[in-house]
């Protein structure tokens, strides 16, 4: 009976067993890097980590919900790329920022809904559907840009990434807002409750007379929409649209979610864990760069991070 947790609100204070390996890893990394490099704990550097983690965080948060609902979204990286290209495309075309943003989010939303609809109504494995969608988005991005970089986007959108408010970079606000919003969605709304239920006991939800399918699709819609939103930052970051910018990011997101203690089964999810997962990867990359560790070692250490974090968990659950 150790593992009893306040399920809404105070998830930031997990009970003993819920402290995932990732939290320990994060702590360890912070410790090591702050010893090895003076700049690490400097405010601008911490800002850096935050800013760099934002995009990944924005797609990992909804990915948490998707995985809780015993699904997976392999298309998110390609979708992020595609939306970014769309944003850049419309900026170059009309130089109308709001329009571009709307289009990007709209495209993300639509593709998310398509994913969800196929998965729920045709009752197909999410992995397959989204893997197919991955290819489709990849192509669409190439087709829209014909493989070129779209850089005629003006300077307004760039501010979304470089600009800051009260001395804090805008992306940080993006991150905070998306976290808070999705936290509320998950822990303080019907939708959130049903996310737990769809993964945990879909029949129970049906018997409770809830329109399960709609909520199930909504999860993927949310995932797509967040990708659209994040794509704004992606485009802003490069101040251009590039057809292969975020390819493969879905894996980073999935890894962050799993490392954060969300499991593929029974709707067992933890949003804050995902946050930790994302930050840990960010800290690791940043720290290794500061120390100037060879890139090949960086590659290996990311793999180690993922495995060790999970091993810590599996040992804890055995102990």
């Amino acid at each position, binding site marked *: 009976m150790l593992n009893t947790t306040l399920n809404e609100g105070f998830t930031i204070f997990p009970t003993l067993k819920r402290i995932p390996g990732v939290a320990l890893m994060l702590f360890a990394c912070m410790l090591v890097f702050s010893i090895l*490099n003076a*700049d690490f704990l*400097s405010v*601008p*550097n911490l800002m*850096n980590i935050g*800013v*760099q983690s934002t*995009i990944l965080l924005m797609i990992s948060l909804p990915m948490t919900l998707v995985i809780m609902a015993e699904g997976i979204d392999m298309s998110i990286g390609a979708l992020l790329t595609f939306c970014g290209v769309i944003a850049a495309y419309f900026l170059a075309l009309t130089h109308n920022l709001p329009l571009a943003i709307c289009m990007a989010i709209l495209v993300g939303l639509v593709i998310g809904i398509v994913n969800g609809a196929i998965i729920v109504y045709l009752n197909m494995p999410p992995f397959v559907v989204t893997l197919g969608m991955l290819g489709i988005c990849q192509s669409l991005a*190439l087709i829209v*840009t*014909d*493989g*070129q*970089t779209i*850089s005629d986007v003006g300077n307004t959108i*760039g501010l979304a*990434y*470089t600009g800051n408010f009260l001395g804090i970079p805008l992306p940080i606000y993006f991150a905070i807002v998306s976290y808070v919003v999705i936290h509320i969605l998950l822990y303080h709304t019907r939708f959130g409750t049903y996310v737990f239920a769809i993964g945990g006991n879909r029949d129970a939800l049906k018997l409770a007379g809830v329109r399960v399918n709609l909520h199930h699709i909504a999860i993927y819609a949310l995932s797509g929409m967040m990708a659209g939103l994040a794509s704004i930052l*992606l485009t802003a*970051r*490069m*101040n*251009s649209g*590039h*057809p*292969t*910018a*975020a390819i*493969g990011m879905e894996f980073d997101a999935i890894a962050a979610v799993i490392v954060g203690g969300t499991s593929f089964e029974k709707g067992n999810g933890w949003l804050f864990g995902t946050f930790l997962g994302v930050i840990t990867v960010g800290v690791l*990359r*940043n720290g290794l*760069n*500061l120390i*100037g560790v*060879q*890139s*090949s070692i*960086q*590659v290996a250490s*990311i793999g180690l991070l993922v495995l060790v974090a999970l091993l810590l968990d599996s040992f804890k659950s055995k102990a």
Partner: protein
Amino acid sequence: MKHHRLLGTSVVLLTLTTGQAFADGEKIAVFTKNQTNPYFQAFRLGSDSAAKQMNASTTHYVPTKPDSIPEQLGAIDDVVVKKPTGIVLIPVDYKAINPGVKKINDAGIPVVNATDRAEAGNFVNWVGADDFSTANAAGKALVKALNGQGNVVILEGVRGVVGNTNRVNGFKKAIEEAPGIKLLASQPGNYQRLQGLQVMENLLQTYPKIDGVMAANDAMASGAIEALEGANRKALIVGINGSKEAVEAIKAGKMLASGDAAPFYQGCFATMSLIRSIRNLPVPKEIVFPPMVVEKATLANYDVAPDKQSCPAWSSIVK
């Protein structure tokens, strides 16, 4: 030998007052695109060698995912925090890098641009080979060998990468100039060996008579060699980069020529220029390595493996 050929080359020179500074031990951050392409390895070795000669030290930053723009931008953020004495930058994408360059400039860190010419930003100078004329020279070599008669296919690199566009155009120019040469097809092989091989295999099926192959890099060229051997067909092949394997292939008579972008020398002189400018020594605004072609005649110059080479004296090249 090779130095002699370079002696003759005229280089635009921007004279500065030669105020000698004796400070050394500069920390140089070198950004390349990926860890797998020999081209960048040669570049890294070049800059290491140069730094060693001038008592400076280098740290290399390579995306963990090959050619990942967000990662390169992230690394730049981290490095700026670290405030190295100077930066040598090969942008993954010449447009998408802009925000990164801006960040470096804002931090007041001197930066040299190498290989792919960045769209904007203040650089100490640009060091690179002119992809267009290099490709054009290689193309011309092929045309010459074919006596201006025959069918040719082009294996493109990654669509949308400026280097690739220039190389392909260089090839096409060479073809246009020779009325007897017919361009059958120009298909992307994404600089990948396997893709170059399979694309070539498939093209061999469509076209019964292919006399020449122009590949945008040596990896695809050697892929093409394998494809031809596999199909028991003969064609003259040119590639670009003058890499070790190309040199061997040319020696073995499997390959006609390879346009030499002189990555090692680019590394050398990019780094030298940077250190020199830091020490207030004069540096030219541009160091462009003139088109050179590795072929039977010039093989001698290329017999040294990159890791055995060391940088020539600054004066031997820049007059």
